[in-house]
């Protein structure tokens, strides 16, 4: 498991070193801190997406959630002059609620995650645009949320607060995922929901919780992004951001089939994506190739991972054979069981050939 993250970290270092060698500006403090800020911004909600992907689901609604929660947040602060702690709380609760609704639809009403969150993507975006009649909301010259703005977009000794927040959240979620009972359940449910249910795990609650956490983190991200851009244009704010999160999670070792992935991997995946974007700028590669570079790297990364895993499985299978083979000859193993086991195999009809 750790091997994967090591490989990813190594790739990150190698790419950074090469880029830095070609253009030293890449490694300048200004550029590194700028990247750290972006990694923080995009990492927070990638963590939530990662949890959802580990359950075997997907959350496509994040970008639209940012737009909807974003316009509400700005409106609360500017139009309604609500004190910022209450506005912040409202956005976080809003994110948790939307995540909860999606989780409910997916677990209780047995709808497919792709469909539920795709509809979320469409609905939240539409709601945001209708609510604002498609006009951009921003802060005036006033000081509506000065303190919060300073926290969200400030820095400690130069290190952007968004990055620090990502590290803190990653540590918390890392403990949750890798050390807690809930994390263990999450992996079990992602790998084999039926066996988890047969072990008394309330699989619905485990899965729904992942969507709720993802929604909550989307609320946090909304606030960070609002103060990053200082305005919310409802038709473009957060567009495609869910795809960045999915890409980061997959690059970081999450399998869309569920049950695989780690917090460290997701953070490294996000970092790699941001480094790639930055590299495109720094190396003077036409900006239009931005997505293409990202797509290519993800493709190669996942392909390489697949090949390595297949090799590992072959090795395991061989090892397994070596272990069981001598036994079955010794004790004439499987007696009486195999014919029935064979009966359970699907029988091909003769006339299908």
């Amino acid at each position, binding site marked *: 498991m750790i091997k994967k993250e090591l490989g990813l970290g190594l790739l990150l270092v190698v790419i950074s070193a090469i880029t830095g060698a070609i253009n030293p500006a890449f490694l300048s403090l200004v550029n590194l801190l700028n990247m750290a800020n972006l990694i923080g911004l995009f990492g927070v909600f990638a963590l939530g997406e990662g949890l959802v992907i580990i359950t075997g689901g997907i959350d496509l609604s994040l970008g639209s959630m940012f737009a909807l929660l974003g316009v509400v947040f700005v409106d609360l602060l500017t139009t309604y002059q609500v004190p910022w702690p209450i506005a912040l709380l409202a956005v976080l609760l809003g994110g948790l609620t939307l995540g909860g609704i999606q989780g409910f639809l997916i677990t209780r009403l047995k709808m497919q995650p792709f469909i539920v969150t795709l509809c979320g993507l469409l609905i939240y975006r539409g709601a945001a645009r209708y609510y604002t009649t498609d006009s951009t909301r921003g802060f005036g010259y006033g000081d509506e949320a000065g303190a919060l703005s300073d926290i969200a977009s400030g820095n400690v000794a130069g290190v952007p607060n968004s990055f620090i927040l990502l590290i803190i959240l990653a540590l918390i979620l890392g403990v949750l995922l890798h050390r807690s009972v809930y994390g263990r*359940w999450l992996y079990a449910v992602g790998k*084999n929901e039926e066996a988890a249910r047969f072990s008394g795990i309330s699989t619905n609650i485990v899965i729904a919780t992942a969507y709720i956490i993802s929604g909550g983190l989307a609320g946090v991200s909304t606030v960070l992004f609002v103060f990053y851009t200082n305005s919310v244009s409802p038709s473009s704010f957060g567009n495609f951001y869910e795809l960045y999160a999915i890409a980061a999670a997959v690059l970081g070792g999450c399998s869309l089939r569920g049950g695989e992935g780690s917090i460290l991997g997701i953070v490294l995946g996000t970092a790699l994506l941001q480094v790639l974007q930055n590299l495109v700028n720094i190396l003077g590669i036409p900006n239009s190739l931005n997505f293409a570079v990202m797509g290519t790297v993800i493709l190669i990364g996942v392909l390489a991972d697949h090949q390595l895993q297949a090799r590992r499985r072959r090795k395991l299978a061989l090892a397994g054979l070596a272990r*069981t083979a001598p036994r079955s000859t010794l004790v004439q193993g*499987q*007696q009486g069981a195999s*014919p*029935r086991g064979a009966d359970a195999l699907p029988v091909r009809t003769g*006339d299908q050939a």
Partner: protein
Amino acid sequence: MAEILFELAGISKSYPGVIALDDVSLRVSRGEVLGLIGENGAGKSTLMRVLGGVVAPSEGVIRIGGQEHARMTVTEATKAGIAFVHQELNLFENLDVAANVFIGREPLVGGPLKLVDNAQMRARVSPLLARLGADFTPDTLVDDLSIAERQMVEIAKALSIDARVIIMDEPTSSLTISETERLLEVIADLKAHGIAVIYISHRLGEIMTCADRVVVLRDGRTVGELARHELSHAAMIRLMIGRDLKALYTPPKRPSQPGGCDIAGLVTSAFPDRQIDLSVRHGEILGLAGLVGAGRTSLARAAFGIDPLLGGEIRIDNAAVGVASPRDAIRQGIYLVPEDRKKSGLVLELPIRENVTLASLLNYARMWLVSGVDERKVAKEQVRRLAIKAPSIDMEAVTLSGGNQQKVVLGKWLSMQPRVMFFDEPTRGVDVGAKSEIYALMRELAEQGVAIVMISSDMEEVIGVSDRVAVMHEGSVSGVLERPQFSEYNVLRLAMGQALETVEAAAP
């Protein structure tokens, strides 16, 4: 003697460590209905798969139309006119009847465009359906058909390839009485047209009605053949049983204690019109026998909270317990070792350690954080107690042999406090050594006062391990046997169902 369509001679099939078929010979003549019977696992399905070209025999020859084959391919079998009507029907529910009949060999139009000629398909299927007396049209979606109607589609499919032999594997297991009669009429019609039918069934009444000849398999061998005039229930059952049963039984050290688990009037979703009454005392192993599909697994699933209870209640020591979910059941000390351990028992990709503690993880956690030390201690203890053969508790369960995997499932439950345990086919796919270890373990649990229900289709196991045997038939308990009454004959009679015999007596 009618023309012989094909002949299987000296067919054997062995899998590593087990002989599924041992020198079986079989011939089928034109227009003959051959009944094929035997217990679960007697080798009926393997034999039919040899005939269908799905499985290659280890020894023996297949003679068809004067030609000898060491083995057949599916294509050759089809060409020779051998067709299957499956126990679990193999139809595409999203396609219509005509498309299913012609699947894989659709008539085409449009030259290079290779479009499917729907009109022609339907025109060709219509007369087949008419011949079978089916009252649906070729353009009906299979999804909208009942099981009996789907069977007609399969038979139509067989007719459309000019089948000369149609193999029916448990065709009536999901049919109503009138549907069954209809099917038997169709079989008589097929026979009149010179088509041979191999009829595999546990329902001896139907076999008596339709078979011209019956071949009985037991442990992969032909143990007898009965001509039409020799057919009787007693004769057939007597041939099916009679295995040498090994002495497996270890009597309990003390008589079973009072109290236990009572299941009263339980209704499962699989048989919504049947009730199940069953009780198992603390300290006893109750064998639960019956044919595949008799509702034993549904009972266990309902008692464990997987499937909803449609009625009735479960009492432990006379106190009703609610089992709305597996979590509830586990809290009450009701555990299930499921039939399909790879699908439901284990998370194969997780290590042994995590599988053992999956159901009880909260016991080894403080403030929801898992204590690695406690967890490893418990996992190691179970590996030692159950003698699970693995180099380390961090090995993924997928790398273990069947017997060791099953022990991991057991370890999961034994690390807690069982009161009632359901074992569903606990030794399926398990080698002999691990089998006796599992039996010993069940006895040990019983001695500790656990009430044990062991679902098994292995007669040797049912008779050899149980203190009492309850037999299920079509969704309810048809009888309970005490040890002096134990015999394969009695178990089989109950499993075949008394109801079936009265129906058969009423039939001509």
